[in-house]
């Protein structure tokens, strides 16, 4: 859960995605194979090597208008093929806070 702001080098040890926040509203988004962004993790492009991760991040940050703060985040690929966030931080980004909000959504 080390903040991606503290990521110094790109070195991945398992399946990963590129994630960011959407510029106009800050929503969590994922880079897709179609070189676009999606709010669905299931539509994210999966990378499995550090070189692939670097390449995906490099083409993601070119879109400075649509997305802010792109970085590489770990995911888990379930036997069913479903993609799950790879750590608590990413689970919170995808699913929301772990507490009840003061005003229910």
């Amino acid at each position, binding site marked *: *859960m*080390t*903040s991606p702001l503290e990521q110094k080098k790109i070195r991945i040890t398992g399946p990963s995605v590129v994630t960011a926040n959407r510029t*106009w509203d800050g*929503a969590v988004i994922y880079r897709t194979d179609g070189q676009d962004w999606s709010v669905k993790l299931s539509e994210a492009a999966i990378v499995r090597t550090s070189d692939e991760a670097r390449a995906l991040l490099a083409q993601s940050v070119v879109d400075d208008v649509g997305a802010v703060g792109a970085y590489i985040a770990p995911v888990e690929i379930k036997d069913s093929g479903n993609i799950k966030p790879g750590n608590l*931080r990413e689970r919170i980004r995808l699913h929301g806070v772990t507490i009840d909000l003061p*005003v229910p959504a």
Partner: protein
Amino acid sequence: MYAYDELDRAVINERVDEFRDQVKRRLSGELTEDEFKMLRLQNGVYLQLHAYMLRVAIPYGTLSSSQLRRLAHVARRYDRGYGHFTTRQNIQFNWIKLAELPDALADLAEVGIHAMQTSGNNTRNVTSDQWAGVAPGEIEDPRIWSELLRQYTTLHPEFSFLPRKFKFAITASAHDRAAIKIHDIGLRLHKNAQGDTGFEVLVGGGLGRTPFIAKTIKPFVHGHDLLSYVEAILRVYNQYGRRDNIYKARIKILVHELGIEKFAKEVEQEWLQMRDGALTLDDAVIEDIRSRFTYPAYPKLPHMPDELKKAAHDPPFEAWRKNSVAQHKIPGYAIVTLSLKPVGGPPGDATADQMDAISDLADRYSFGEIRVGHEQNLALPHVARRDLPALWKALDNIGLATPNVNLVSDIIACPGLDYCSLANARSIPIAQELTRRFANHATADLIGRLHINISGCINACGHHHVGHIGILGVEKNGEEFYQITIGGRADENAELGTLIGPAVPYSEAADVIEDIVEAYLALRARPDELFVDTVKRLGVEPFRERVYATR
């Protein structure tokens, strides 16, 4: 309340127009994020895990009822119906859209509220005692000087690009409720032997990765010289503060590395060149600021009215009164703290409906004024003692009469990993669990005054270093762990807490805190020896032995 003049309003409105243009250019791609980031930060806009966050300043913690209603409006119209009061007299909205931010700021500007300099490497919101102007025994209202500093530091060109952020806090009471010793500059208003009013100036306090308690750089600076002396400090910092390493850029590091004597000498030399110049405050300027603060015309009222005598027989009322009601400088009146720490709730949060209701209660019972304290609670500063029973009932109806002010469940906590992009671990669920464990009021009352502070990372927004019990979230191999310190305090006798032992996992954190409290109850010399005094007397070892013996 302070009445803004035309210049104040013009500055705020111009900034909204400027930021609206900057947002428009960012969304069109004319500005890159690298170019825009500093601009948004200077307007209090962060990017958190799920969304942008807007931090709005509440200078010296004073709000009018119309201002609080407008904050409720922003929460409802642009956010998700609530706001989070912070440890520096700000309010944060966690779900705001960049595209709508200019409209939100324009709505706030209409009632004189802004977000300027609530982030970025500049002078931040000037904070003060939330009981300023009403606390018995106060030298004078510290908000007069807070407002002077606010005007002086707002958009000051020389201090808009400091090596790092810079925070002021001011108190004028013997008991420090503003935590001045953990600020970059802390100011304690007092009188010298000649009866002149001035400031003890402290410098280099701060928490975060490298915590320090501020040191006194000058025991007495006359009020007329306040701005020139402060400017001398800032100039020395601006010149020598480190810009090459963000972790060493705060003034506390400079003061520590130079030593307070050498730092003071540098400041003195700088000050001698300017002390009787344009920054010297004449009486007219001070009086002009003073005259803009209005105080209620308190009707004369009995100190022990019949309503209060009758309510004293009601145990729930008495439990609330004992912890939430403080003495006012005017007989017949009281200062009432509104706990934003309900059992099981996120510390410091208030819904828009609650904010509206508090505004109505402020109009009815507190001359339309509300205060915000660094403990993440609110206060009504001018309540007639005869109205206390009625106010209590009204607060209870909106969930704001939890009788836990200054008790173990009155927890200070940062937003933690549930919201913050810097956090390593969650803070709010730990706080919620602790409030459930200590929900029994009789138990909490038996424990007495005990401040728990929780931070989700080393940046220490929850002030964990100075909690009687401090809890710091860290990450170990992808899991949440918590380091526990005890013996810290943020008042006039400020101290940093001492680490009690190895970090414990999330699942054990609340158990460990319960064990520490049980150890205290067994170790204290007498029922009125506070937790922090027991730690001071015995050190951490007896606590460590009891807490870690079975772990």
